[in-house]
């Protein structure tokens, strides 16, 4: 008996391992998790901060693009008076450095920051004002720090910013639980969270999550911002949900105009945010060390532009009607659902695009395209339906396929809808990739065959620069262990819809799935600065291609990228084995 009891206890193999596990791509630092591959405060390892304007790239501190290392410092030889035009090339006392040359004064509208002449509208080390470097690898655009691209990582519940050109990404930031679709709303990033059925928010450009959120229907597939309104397409919940800011133009009813987003005019001609009365503003003047003075109007403000580095310039003017934020706590956008349209049980609406006062919603399950009148946001209603399933889907070998319209874009009065064209039994491509073309006025519909352009299973379409960019997920092949072995006819088709002239870019994983080359499974895409960025839902990567002047596409970031491999945007959880870039947008 005793022996048996002892044996029993011995076989109790110990308690399970417990504890918090950091999200993919991050590791434990103190009580939190940090992305040590890109976090300038925890670069390479916890607590290892980068100096000055250094940024963290691939776990190592390095000079940001546009700066060079001189005597252990990252300097801008373009404007640094001590290294003007090159390391150690100091300008004489009293001179300034501009365009790599010493001069007596700054010319051409350049702003003088000490003895450096900079363009505060574009200089990431003096963005908007002297001595205001952008965090991480953010770009400086119109005097404001910003990411060029933002990607959503559905699997790990994160978002990440990417700088175009340098193709460097920022730290992974948690946002919700499963952000599937993202959109910009002024200074806020909105994300449709499938896991929590919520519309969550993050501050731009830091991507830190805000506390405000709204309930969405089930299975949000796309979030679209149009003017002040937000449209959410709830696939499982089969609704189109319309949200808009609460209150008068979004500003809190109790806030007086001057107490909110008004900027104080300073004696030297500049302007600043009021320090003590910024209840309605998103950017509080919280600069440490700022010397606040009492102004004539009773408010507080910085003494002068140059003082204590506390000047915070006004953000770019908000679009007309763009709301202020509620409360001094910067909780986020106060939105409310004002209208909703039921597309019908089992219809699976998949996407939305706006033309004028109409929203267009493709239905994945039925193959229809709904034309929805949203002129009154409170009562969206369907006014027409275009049956895309009845188009010639050209199935392979005489089989039968379902159109499965999955995404939509509009250009020049026409609507373009990707048709997955999948076999009904296997859900594998059962016909060529197709792009339905619908005239927004006459509702006449036709198809453009993308299959001959090397595209199967098109999943996303984007209209930009007068062209259409179509992401093709291709046909996947798995090995016996359901590891993705290869994907064929996947990539991007760049199409001129009027001439059907096209170019195709297919990242080729030549060595197969088990040769260290992880196949790409394309998802959403973005176009920025003459480049196509393509999300990957297999390895959490972003591939990139340059659009050549002759209309060709050359791989920039990828298996054979001219600038190197793909950008590892989202972390990969080894337990799951894949990572999903669920959405990718370009910020203006």
């Amino acid at each position, binding site marked *: *008996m005793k022996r048996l009891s002892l044996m*029993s206890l011995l076989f*109790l193999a110990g308690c399970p391992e417990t504890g918090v596990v950091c999200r993919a791509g991050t590791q434990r630092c103190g009580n939190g998790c940090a992305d040590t591959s890109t976090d300038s405060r925890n670069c390479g390892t916890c607590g290892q901060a980068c100096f000055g304007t250094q940024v963290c790239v691939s776990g190592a501190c390095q000079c940001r693009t546009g700066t060079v290392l001189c005597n252990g410092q990252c300097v801008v030889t373009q404007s640094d008076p001590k290294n003007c035009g090159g390391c150690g090339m100091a300008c004489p006392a009293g001179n300034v450095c501009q365009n790599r040359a010493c001069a007596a004064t700054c010319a051409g509208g350049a702003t003088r920051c000490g003895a450096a002449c900079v363009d505060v509208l574009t200089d990431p080390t003096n963005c908007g004002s002297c001595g205001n470097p952008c965090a991480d690898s953010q770009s400086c655009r119109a005097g404001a720090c910003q990411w060029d691209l933002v990607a959503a990582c559905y699997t790990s519940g994160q978002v990440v910013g990417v700088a175009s050109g340098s193709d460097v990404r920022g730290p992974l930031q948690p946002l919700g639980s499963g952000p599937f679709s993202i959109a910009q709303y002024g200074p806020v990033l909105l994300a449709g969270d499938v896991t929590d059925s919520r519309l969550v928010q993050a501050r731009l450009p830091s991507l830190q999550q805000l506390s405000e959120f709204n309930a969405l229907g089930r299975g949000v597939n796309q979030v679209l911002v149009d003017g002040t309104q937000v449209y959410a397409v709830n696939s499982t919940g089969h609704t189109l*949900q319309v949200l808009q800011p609460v209150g008068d133009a979004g500003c809190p009813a109790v806030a007086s105009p001057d107490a909110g987003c008004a900027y104080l005019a300073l004696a030297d001609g500049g302007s600043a945010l009021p320090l003590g009365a910024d209840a309605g503003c998103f950017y509080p003047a919280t600069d440490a060390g700022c010397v606040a003075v009492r102004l004539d109007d009773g408010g507080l403000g910085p003494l002068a532009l140059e003082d204590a580095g506390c000047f915070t310039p006004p953000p770019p003017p908000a679009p007309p009607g763009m709301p202020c934020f509620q409360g001094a706590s910067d909780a986020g956008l106060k939105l409310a659902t004002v209208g909703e349209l039921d597309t019908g049980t089992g219809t699976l609406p998949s996407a939305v695009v706006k033309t004028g006062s109409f929203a267009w919603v493709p239905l994945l399950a039925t193959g229809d395209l709904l034309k929805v009148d949203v002129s009154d946001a409170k009562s969206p209603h369907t006014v027409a339906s275009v049956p895309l399933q009845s188009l010639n889907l050209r199935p392979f070998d005489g089989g039968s396929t379902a159109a499965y319209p999955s995404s939509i874009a509009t250009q020049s009065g026409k609507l373009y809808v990707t048709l997955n064209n999948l076999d009904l039994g296997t859900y594998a491509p059962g016909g060529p990739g197709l792009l339905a073309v619908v005239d927004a006025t006459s509702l006449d519909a036709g198809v453009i065959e993308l299959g001959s352009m090397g595209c199967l299973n098109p999943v996303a379409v984007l209209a930009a620069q007068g062209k259409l960019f179509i992401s093709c997920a291709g046909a996947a092949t798995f090995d016996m262990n359901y590891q993705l072995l290869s994907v064929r006819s996947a990539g991007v088709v760049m199409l001129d819809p009027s001439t059907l002239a096209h170019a195709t870019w297919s990242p080729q994983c030549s060595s197969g799935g088990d040769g260290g080359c992880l196949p790409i499974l394309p998802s959403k895409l973005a176009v920025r600065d003459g480049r196509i960025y393509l999300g990957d839902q297999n390895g959490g990567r972003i591939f990139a291609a340059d659009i050549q002047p002759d209309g060709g596409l050359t791989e920039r970031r990828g298996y054979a990228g001219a600038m190197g491999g793909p950008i590892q945007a989202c972390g990969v959880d080894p337990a799951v084995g894949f990572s999903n870039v669920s959405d990718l947008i370009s910020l203006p």
Partner: protein
Amino acid sequence: MVGVLLLIALQAPSPSPPVGDGRGEGDAIPLPPVDVPAPPEEAPAAASSPTRRAPSAVTTTVEPTEHRGEAKDTAALLASTPGVTLAGAGGTGQSTSISVRGAASSGVLVLLDGVPLGGPSESVDLATIPTPVVERLEVLKGGGARYGPGALGGVLNIVTLRPRGKARLFAEATQGAFETTLLSAGATGELLGGQGLFVLHGARSEGNFDYAYRPLSELAGSPTEARARTNNASLLGGALLKYRAELPKGVALDAMVEGTAYARGLAGTIDNPTTDAHEQGQRATFGARVTKAFEGAGELEVLAWGRLHRNAFAGGAFGSDVYAQTDSGAGAEAHYSQLAFGRHGLSALVSGSAEWLQAPGGNPSWGRFSAMARDEVLLLGGDLTVDASVRVDRSGPFTGFSPHLGALWLLPRGFEVRANLGQAHRPPSFFELYVQQGHLIPNAQLKPERGLYADGAAGFRHGRGFVQVGGFYALYEDLISYEYYPPLLARPVNFAAARVAGLEVEARVEPLSWVQASATYSLLFTQNLKDDPRFYLNPLPYRPRHKLHARLAVGPRWLYARGEVLYQSDQFVNRTATLTLPERAFVNLGATCELLQEPKLSLSFELKNLLDVQGMDLDGYPLPPRAAYLTLSLTWDVVPERKS
């Protein structure tokens, strides 16, 4: 069975109990009633497989005969059991799964007279268990270390009707809401020198009902509209055949064959209902148990069993093609028990089986081999039973150790205390490991789920009732969950560790011969212990924290009325604990009138969901509204039992 043997062995040497300990004069040292469930006038149902149950196990037994005429299916009979959570798809014959102490339904081993009903680690649909063939339902709560793989949260042992020596005919007919008809008839008596039993049963339900639906769910103040749940029909029929014989030289034979066929519409989800999806299934189960008692208080028990279950799906997401799968298994086990040293009950078990799955996505099979050693020792004059066992199982590529240590202490004046500690595990199922099902793909790298459990309970039994209060704690690791896998697929992964703790209270009292009251309460805490911050320390989804059942029956045996309340608190439906299903409380009323005594004929009326509460299944699809049923029951003892 060991308990019974121990009882016999201890009768001789055991000293007389001290005066005033509350026991009746001449009583032997009592063992817990839960371990000796034999009715007074019949031999115990040998096929109930009591050999594996530890006397200390916290077990609830439900007998359908106590609910005759109440139009309850197997799941409804278990609804009051503390520690048990049921998830039904809504309506007669629609799929219903069981969760015990926070373990998923795939972590509850379901046995039919000792024969495992599901494939390896597969969830069993209780809707396919016909109530008319059930004599009692035994729910063993906590890891079923002695039952082998799959009993992570507990064991549901379904014991079928036993053959009787005297001839008896019985029948029952129910007609009620949603065009529901339930019929059963059976006979038992002497047969071929032994005792035989035959039961036929059938059930059909149109199943459609109206419910209130709010299509613009996110728009505050939007109206509801009436919608109908359709494609909810079901049809089920089957038979049970049993035979029992006492053979020469102390050998007893029990044999059982059970077959059930069913068809049902699959209504889909509230967001995406399906109008043409349906399922057809057939199940056959066979078990034969031979028991031989030896001189010297030893006993050998050999069980051979087989199981075949085929089901096919068509329509809806399955399209026009039929998706058919068949899981089958066959095995045998031998169990020898021996009294030793006056107070030890030693036993050993070896078993082997083979299991197969045939499905469009693959045809895996594996063998299972198990060995278990066990000792039960009586201490303190038999008041304290300490049992220890260890079981080793090899299931396909997985090996699991399942130790168990338990104690039962019978105190004076009807009090008792029990405690258990052990480890259980659940190997991944064939589907999780090897077979693709539509969008669900397998993962051959999965590890088995493991659970460490401990529980304790204190009880008080009295001639007019009993009360038991218990608590439990379990740690699970490598729980398996399907997660999104691109493109448009889901794949199972070992995702987390979790802790589960709770409280179970069960009380029953009969203050007067015509008044019976009972109540149960379950408190369940779950917590994710290893995950990223989105999920870490969150409650596990689909585990309601509170469950309460109260029942009152009043009246003489020939005319009595009853009422019951079933309350279940809200529950999360996602791992981030942000989406919930609302709480619900169902009130049922009923009355039974005995029209004749010999043959016994009774008429029952049942009103379910009196308050017309709109409950929801796990997907938010409403459950049936208020419904009424009328039941006529007949029991006729044709030939008086022959005196032996």
